[in-house]
């Protein structure tokens, strides 16, 4: 029964993935801007986020097949709870798909709030002390953040209303009249937006809920939280950023993004070095990569934006793979304490190999996809004459890379300290690893034309053209 539900779920998300691919080819590569009835709006940027979401969600649906089966077999969850999981999984995915499709900033806010409310159940899924604590922190901190974002949205509406007499929350309207808005009001409103959505996007110093929630969530969902949910929130910031740039020029927006980006990198660096928990390690690495994307946005040249958007996708697929591997390890070893895990390549050869490739890609070794996008980002910093930023990026990437190499070296190699249970690799993890590795390796070797055109179109959207 559960198996059949899982299979249908996976097939259904495969269909969605195909649709997302089609949408990207049509809208992204064609650089179209479609809107339906003022409520929905799709352009290259949204299409890119939709494809990212669909890719990670489909992979998570595949991985859930074996993960849920193993949890059932170990008696961690009941069959009823497994069905409940699939329901929440789809609601959560649905809310995330809604975010990039919406034109109205009020409903955009709501969709993001909805993702928090639904995923809090997935964070607290196991109902243990730790998971409920993580879910509570997640709910409370993100709710405060999102309330501030609503305050910002109201200030934006007021700015629009007092300048043009229009009463609309549609961001196409907001963008069209950006030139007439009161710059001071817009700047103040954007601070609220940035703090609000930045909390949910995991930008330091507003990230404190993130490692808890991402490490306690059920593993396929950890991948979705880290891989795409953070970016949904970042997407909202980007949409406002376009308006802010059109209204008060690029420097204000750029400096803020650079500050938060570099600060996130610094914080992530410290916590990655001293980390003792496998899933928290990956969560802090997400903060690092979000910081990198924010720096790319802040640099604001076409090259940097191209790199940032490519990185958005690359990080999503790489981090998803890592969380699946970590989930599998946690299931087999019964812990995600780094000091108690070793010899994964011997004990779980398939997961071990996937993790080895994944961690090399995550650190930024060629030919991983992340190498290419990080290369774009760092070159953009130097080409733009931001030598300090470029130097800082290189320095932090080197330190973080070293720390990750150290941690994963201990996890992957050596003799297994404890003999893990259920070493046979189920089909669900084979499929999900394989699917993600196509992107992780493939995009490091060449970027297909469709994606390149879409990325360029999305860069155009970000630059307000």
């Amino acid at each position: 029964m559960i198996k059949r539900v899982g299979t249908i779920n996976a097939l259904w998300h495969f269909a969605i993935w195909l649709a997302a691919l089609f949408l990207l080819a049509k809208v992204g590569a064609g650089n179209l801007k479609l809107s339906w009835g003022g409520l929905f709006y799709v352009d290259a940027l949204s299409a890119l986020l939709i494809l990212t979401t669909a890719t990670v969600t489909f992979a998570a649906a595949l991985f859930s097949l074996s993960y849920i089966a193993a949890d059932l077999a170990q008696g961690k969850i009941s069959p009823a709870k497994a069905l409940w999981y699939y329901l929440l999984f789809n609601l959560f995915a649905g809310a995330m798909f809604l975010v990039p499709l919406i034109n109205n900033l009020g409903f955009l806010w709501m969709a993001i709030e909805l993702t928090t409310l639904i995923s809090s159940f997935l964070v607290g899924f196991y109902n243990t002390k730790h998971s409920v604590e993580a879910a509570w922190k997640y709910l409370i901190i993100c709710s405060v953040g999102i309330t501030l974002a609503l305050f910002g949205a109201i200030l934006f509406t007021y700015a629009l209303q007092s300048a043009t007499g229009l009463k609309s929350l549609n961001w196409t309207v907001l963008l069209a009249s950006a030139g007439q808005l009161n710059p001071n009001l817009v700047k103040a409103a954007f601070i609220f937006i940035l703090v609000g959505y930045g909390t949910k996007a995991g930008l330091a110093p507003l990230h404190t809920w993130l490692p808890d929630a991402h490490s306690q969530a059920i593993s396929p969902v950890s991948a979705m939280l880290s891989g795409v949910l953070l970016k949904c929130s970042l997407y909202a910031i980007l949409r406002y950023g376009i308006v802010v740039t059109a209204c008060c020029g690029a420097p204000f927006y750029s400096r803020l993004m650079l500050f938060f980006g570099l600060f996130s990198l610094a914080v992530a660096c410290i916590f990655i070095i001293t980390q003792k928990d496998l899933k928290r390690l990956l969560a802090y690495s997400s903060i690092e990569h979000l910081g990198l994307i924010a720096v790319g946005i802040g640099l604001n040249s076409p090259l940097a934006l191209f790199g940032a958007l490519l990185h958005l996708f690359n990080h999503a697929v790489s981090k998803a793979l890592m969380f699946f591997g970590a989930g599998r390890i946690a299931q087999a070893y019964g812990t995600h304490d780094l000091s108690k895990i070793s010899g994964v390549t011997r004990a779980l050869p398939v997961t071990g190999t996937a993790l080895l490739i994944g961690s090399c890609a995550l650190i930024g070794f060629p030919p991983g996809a992340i190498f290419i996008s990080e290369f774009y980002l760092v070159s953009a910093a130097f080409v733009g004459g931001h030598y300090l930023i470029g130097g800082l990026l290189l320095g932090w990437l080197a330190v973080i890379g070293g720390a990750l190499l150290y941690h994963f070296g201990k996890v992957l190699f050596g003799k297994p300290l404890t003999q893990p249970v259920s070493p046979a690799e189920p089909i669900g993890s084979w499929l999900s690893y394989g699917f993600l590795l196509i992107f992780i390796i493939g995009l490091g070797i060449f970027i297909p034309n469709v994606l390149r055109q879409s990325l360029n179109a999305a860069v155009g959207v970000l630059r307000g053209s």
Partner: protein
Amino acid sequence: MAWLLLFAILLITTETALVSRFPALLRNFRYQSLCLALLTLLAAEREASPELYVIAGLLFGLKVLLIPHLFDVLIKRIGASEQVGLFLNTQVSLLLAGALGLLAWAFAGALIAAPAYLTQATLGIACYITLTGILLMVTRVKALAQVIGLLLTENGVFLAATIIPGGMPFFVEIALFFDILVSVMIFGLFIYRINAIFTHIDVSKLAGLKG
């Protein structure tokens, strides 16, 4: 009249910094929401807008009646003590609230030009409520107090929405109400869970996850 209600909201908000028991905190939230509903009613009358009447009615039904009632039930069910639990004592809280008030005032003054005094005051007080709500969430240790702090913060946001002539677009506002109701229920559910698993709702003791 609008000035009077704003002043009442200001007083009620300031008083929440001094409160140390749940029933009083809830009562403050109720009164604050009532003032907010009345303000919206005034705006509805002024602009003869049927949509604003609906919103004032919803504010009254949800935030004055339903949500406080749900909290009453919750407090009785889990049998929590009435103390909200203070990280900072009430005097320091009051001082901090005053500082936040000054900040909010300066913020509103900088944004809204001089002749629109009512808008200026509304935005200032809205900002003050929002910040005070957050202050309560940070300095009170019980999970329930944090949720009430969040609701106060939301009241601030709703008050800010009244500076837009005619309010926010109608459907957005309706959806916001729905959202608040759902989130309060989910918060309630998690408070149950915390109480069941930890046998208390003291957030300062939820410290199993670090680093």
